[in-house]
């Protein structure tokens, strides 16, 4: 919980590992697209044919979807629904919760199957959880996060953002 109590900070090493897991999953599951999103709707990493989708909207709607489903689960006394599956005419979306904080999204068509996807996702999810655990212990070891890149931000910096 300590790790997730504050801001999520991702470093190069974990980022690379996550990307490697997603790449493998993308290939092994014959998916069109694989996404990792945090529960607040921020996209963390993705692999696949990104040009054809609006990745930011996908991330935000996925998080909304998961949040609503979580709400439903609580209402009926479930802890969570760890897998959501949406079947379309051509494409399908498989959504699963990883380590309580992250959402793994996989888009696939008839070149794959739900069985294959479920199998591969299970393996990838275990690997991603490992990365998360590593991140948590790293955060615990280091105690405080490194100085924020914004530590010396000035009003001028911020004003500059809004002038076009």
């Amino acid at each position, binding site marked *: 919980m300590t790790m997730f109590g504050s801001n999520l900070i991702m470093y190069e090493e974990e980022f690379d590992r996550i990307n490697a897991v997603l790449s493998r999953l993308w290939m092994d599951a014959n998916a069109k697209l694989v996404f990792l999103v945090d529960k607040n709707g921020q996209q963390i990493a993705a692999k696949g044919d990104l040009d054809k989708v609006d990745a930011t909207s996908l991330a*935000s709607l996925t998080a909304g979807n998961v949040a609503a489903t979580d709400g439903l689960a609580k209402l009926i006394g479930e802890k969570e629904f760890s897998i959501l599956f949406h079947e379309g005419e051509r494409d399908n979306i498989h959504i699963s919760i990883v380590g309580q904080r992250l959402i793994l999204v996989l888009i696939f068509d008839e070149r794959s199957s739900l069985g294959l996807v479920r199998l591969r996702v299970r393996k990838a999810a275990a690997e991603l959880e490992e990365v998360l655990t590593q991140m948590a212990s790293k955060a615990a070891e280091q105690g405080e996060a490194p100085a924020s890149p914004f530590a010396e931000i000035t009003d001028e910096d911020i004003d500059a953002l*809004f002038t076009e």
Partner: protein
Amino acid sequence: MSFINYASREINCKIVYYGPGLGGKTTNLQYVYERTNPQNKGQLISLATETDRTLFFDFLPLDLGSVRGFRTRFHLYTVPGQVFYDASRKLILKGVDGVIFVADSQEARMDANLESLDNLKHNLHENGFDLAVIPYALQFNKRDLPSAVAYDVMLRALQIKGEPTFEAVAPKGIGVFETLKAVAKQVLHELSKK
């Protein structure tokens, strides 16, 4: 809960527009969308009912450029204002970095403003946040309406901690960017403390 990605040098922050139903939250977002360069914005997503009332949320990703070498992206969300959508409102406040309260200036809506403000406090608390400390700005919308309550009166009724306040006419864009900027500023300052 901002997400700082040191690998891709990106920072993502979440700002939520809160307030009573039909107060102009979605209109604020629509104006921001219309007035932002295409390369700096994503799609405006509205999960609305058939009568254009917000059902779950509106969402607009906004790219504000770089601060200290980090690409700064704000994710703007609105909540559904109608009282019975409370469960949805609570969900949207998850991981919020800053809140904009859009108050309706019409006299007949003052009770709704107060009720919504109470609801905001409560739902923030449920998500582990405190309105007293979270980046926050207050917007008095619909200032052009004849039934608008005097500024001083609204200020006394709704301001809670000396937060910046703005008079707005959202469809015309008056006060819209000013309000957003005020919260974005606080959010970035908050980050500098971490």
